[in-house]
């Protein structure tokens, strides 16, 4: 049967209702996280299991990157990186690994922050799907999101893309920001950008790709039977590595010009941009040379609001808008502040002990 199609229209009232819903959802969610996680348990929303490192960021700009006042070729600035994993306190589990970049030596203030995770696509694609993921987590003993993966196959594909089991080092993983950002350079042309960090040596093979068995059931993130790696092996590996060498990454950017007929799917973090049409270009080098202690690593915070003008996040229209994820992130400041208040009131979280509390989402 042939399908006849009729275009739909959207009213101004509808647009306003969408925005109010987005605003209230983001605010409510951030307050909820602030109270239940930040203040009560002194946890981040995710990626609590992590370790920081200090170093420098040297702008090494590909000539094809349009000029932007923030991007100065050859400029070197201090930087901090926090490597983490979501959402368990056990490095040997199958989990998402992260690299959060801050071009500053301050705990929060920074001209440029970027959160990156393994895998080029995500488990969720907008605020609505993120909330659905959160609602359907139902974690028990290292198994989570079973129903979510059944209902949302893209979420499952995202999990398969992002999960890493027993990587040999944080240093040989590739990390993607996944969500696009604005890129409005000196020429004033509207462009969009995606970011990633790859090992400095392009020959390095990414470790920890999940085996076929795990692809069938990404919901099972538990350590493999007879696992000998410790709960902190990956953090320790980074600390050991930084004792006698630096860890370097290329920080890269993918840029596309905004077109009048662009589909909204270009903002979808579950769809890669064509690398041939929009090639990755070097933006600079991250060079880490000093490990941070557990407490300093916990205090450090990152935000999508820490971005220079023209490179900021894209405004969202509704909770179904793909850009609503960064909008939600932008409203999480209150959660970070609540966590820091919790540290002051109840003390900082203890370091993850080397014990048999495996497959755990709690420290002890």
């Amino acid at each position: 049967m042939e399908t006849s199609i009729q275009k739909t229209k959207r009213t101004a009232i509808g647009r306003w209702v969408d925005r109010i819903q987005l605003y209230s959802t983001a605010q409510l969610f951030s307050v909820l996280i602030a109270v239940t996680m930040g203040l009560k348990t002194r946890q981040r929303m995710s990626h609590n299991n992590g370790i920081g490192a200090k170093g420098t960021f040297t702008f090494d700009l590909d000539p094809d990157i349009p000029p932007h006042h923030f991007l100065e070729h050859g400029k070197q600035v201090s930087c901090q990186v926090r490597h983490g994993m979501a959402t368990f306190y056990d490095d040997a589990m199958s989990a998402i690994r992260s690299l959060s970049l801050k071009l500053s030596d301050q705990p929060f203030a920074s001209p440029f922050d970027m959160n990156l995770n393994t895998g080029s696509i995500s488990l969720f694609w907008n605020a609505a799907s993120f909330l659905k993921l959160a609602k359907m987590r139902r974690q028990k003993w290292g198994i989570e999101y079973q129903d979510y993966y059944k209902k949302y196959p893209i979420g499952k594909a995202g999990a398969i893309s992002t999960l890493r089991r027993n990587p040999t080092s944080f240093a040989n993983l590739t990390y993607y920001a996944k969500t696009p950002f604005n890129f409005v350079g000196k020429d004033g042309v509207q462009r969009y950008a995606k970011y990633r960090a790859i090992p400095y040596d392009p020959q390095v093979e990414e470790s920890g790709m999940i085996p076929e068995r795990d692809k069938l059931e990404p919901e099972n993130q538990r350590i493999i039977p007879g696992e000998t790696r410790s709960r902190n092996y990956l953090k320790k590996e980074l600390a050991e590595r930084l004792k006698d060498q630096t860890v370097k990454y290329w920080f890269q950017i993918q840029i596309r010009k905004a077109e009048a007929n662009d589909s909204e799917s270009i903002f979808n973090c579950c769809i890669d941009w064509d690398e041939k049409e929009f090639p990755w270009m070097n933006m600079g080098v991250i060079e880490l040379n000093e490990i941070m202690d557990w407490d300093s690593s916990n205090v450090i915070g990152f935000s999508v609001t820490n971005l220079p003008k023209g490179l900021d996040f894209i405004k969202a229209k509704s909770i179904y808008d793909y850009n609503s994820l960064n909008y939600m992130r932008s409203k999480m400041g209150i959660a970070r502040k609540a966590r820091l208040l919790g540290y002051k009131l109840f003390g900082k979280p203890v370091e993850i002990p080397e014990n048999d509390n495996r497959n755990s989402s709690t420290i002890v």
Partner: protein
Amino acid sequence: MPSQPFDFDEMFRIQAECEEKLKGTHPTRTTRHRIKSINHLNDHGSKLISNPLAIIAESLLRTYEKARDSVQSVIAKLFPRHEQVIRNDINSSIIGRLTFAELKDYHVPIHHMHIELWAKTRWWQWIKLSQTDTNINGHFELSFDMSVIHRNRIAKTIRFEIYHTDTHHFNEHPTENKAIYRAERLNRLFKTIKINKGDLTGMSYNMGTIPLYYWEYRRDTKLPRVVIKDHDLDAPQKYPKERMDAITTQFIPIELITRKHLSKIKKGKPLTIEEIQSDYPENLTVAMEKVKPGITRSDQWFGDRMINGMYASTLDKDPENPDLYWLYYHWSSYDHRPDYAFNDISMKFSINDEGYFIPQSITLKGPTSPDGSPNSKITLTPQDGQKWEAAKRVARVSGGILTEMDKHFTETHLNTEQYAIAAYRNIRRNPVGAILFPHLRNVVLINHTADKILVKKGGYINRATALTKTGIKKRVSDVLGTLDWKNWSPMKPLSDKHRYALAANLYYEVLESYIHEFFEAHEEDIIAEWHEIYSFSNDLVEHSVEPFLCGHLQKAHKVNPGQGEAAQPEDWYTKENRMDLNLKRPLVSDEFKALSHITTTNVLNKNHQEECDRELTALKKACAYVIFNATFGHYWANSKQYDDIGEIRYSSLGIRLGTDPIGVFGPEQDDSISPDLTISTQMMWWSNMLSKTGYGYIMKNEQGDINPLLIHKLKEKEAAFAELGVDIYTIQSETNI
């Protein structure tokens, strides 16, 4: 002194006059009674609505239903379901897979099932979001614009709707070429699944595997039967209202007569077979006897009815005498009760110079009297006087049960059901559905009812004939195992007075011509959707019974199809209207199957002309076979039941050995031989119900789904059919009674 030659012309003239007289004399409902449904018919007393309070309640219910329908109709007009899909960009999809639900079927996909996604707004408006068909693996992807759902917060509920495509409506094509009548697929809602709007967050939403209880095969029998747990709730089809109205009008008077008799019998009030007979409308033999007593007991009438009546027997050449024809009924292998004359019967016929069939001898094997030996055998000829007359009566009765069980119930009802299940499970897009479905409709419903009241333990066959439940079961399975579409052709006329065979061939020619033209017009689409035919064929063969050939024929032809053997049968054996013994049967899971594959090719390439021609020819033959059996085959066996078993003393479905030493050779008036009073009145109930409650005729095309081309072609042959005694306006379009 030589006896006066029999006047055949007179006999047929009387027959024609009586048939004309009986036309339109069947009583119609004049009382308040109503029938609850066809499934509630029962020869012990159907469920009638007769209590005044119940009638008032039923009227109120009808009024309520009418009011409800009117309100729904108004709502539907106020908030129509526009077929246009509303969307800007495709940014989301709902995916999943449809499979059959039954245990053995769980991984069998339901292909080409039409599905739609609708949103209902807070203001009751309907928005069509998407539509698609499942692919050949049962997978579907309904792509839609998520912003439409969330647009202005208007969508309240999201409905995932699964549709049947099991009927068509024919629109006449504007050109003169009548073959191109356009079949418009009609989708009927089968199942609705509500989707939580909040679950649709964009991208893909997976509904997973959705198992549907849809045309499932029963697992409690080896016969290919459909699962119907509750006729009124979960049957895959429903009778149209007009069918219910027709049976209410036509059958209530008969039902009331039977009730009156059963009540009298129960109360011990006097009642005779003659009284029972006279209470029911006259049948053909009763009417003819009034004109010329003895005419329907003549050898000539016997011969004609055996060949051209309800029995429409297939005759072989007599292996012992090539000048004679042989008709054999085998019953002794089937479990039966001992108090009935249930003989194996061998009949020999000659064809006289005018082409008429004359019985020459009847051999009865088995007991013919209460103390008769199971191995006794007696051959009678016209010279044997009363015994010969009685032997004809035994043969008529035996032929009656054979026609009812073998030809009517198995060859048309069950045979059609096996094609119906496979067709409804698999054919949706292929144009072939448009020519098959009108003739496959409702057969599973009536078969379900027949199970209950006709063939199950305590059913009429079990009560009125010698066959036990075990015997019925085996007989049905065996007969079904002798049926196959491949290389089938209608009965070959043995003379110009072989009216049944002539009419069957004429009808088959019409079908072949109609199907050929239809295929020519739709060949491209038939080839394009060949996968459906492949799946149809697979289901048919996989669920078919084992092939069957009786021990006598196995020995005679040195072949056993049940063991996968094939051989050319002996010359005396009639090949038409029978399974081709020269074909090796398909093997499925170490079991040979009676039905042949229509195709074993999943994809048909029209560039491979030879293969295409071969496969299309096979499909045409299969279609012709299915339609023939479901229409003409059923019409003949069914509509003539009141003529041939509508007079209790003339013939019935069971004849008892009686109490007299001469047993079945006693006179017709011996009540110990005839069926008892209960069975007698129930027999009249049955023969009336089967022959006189018609609905669904090709020429009337009540449901509008018969291809006008078939109607046109039949109309062209109206006179030729009439010459053979067939009124084309009485040929049923479906096997529904």
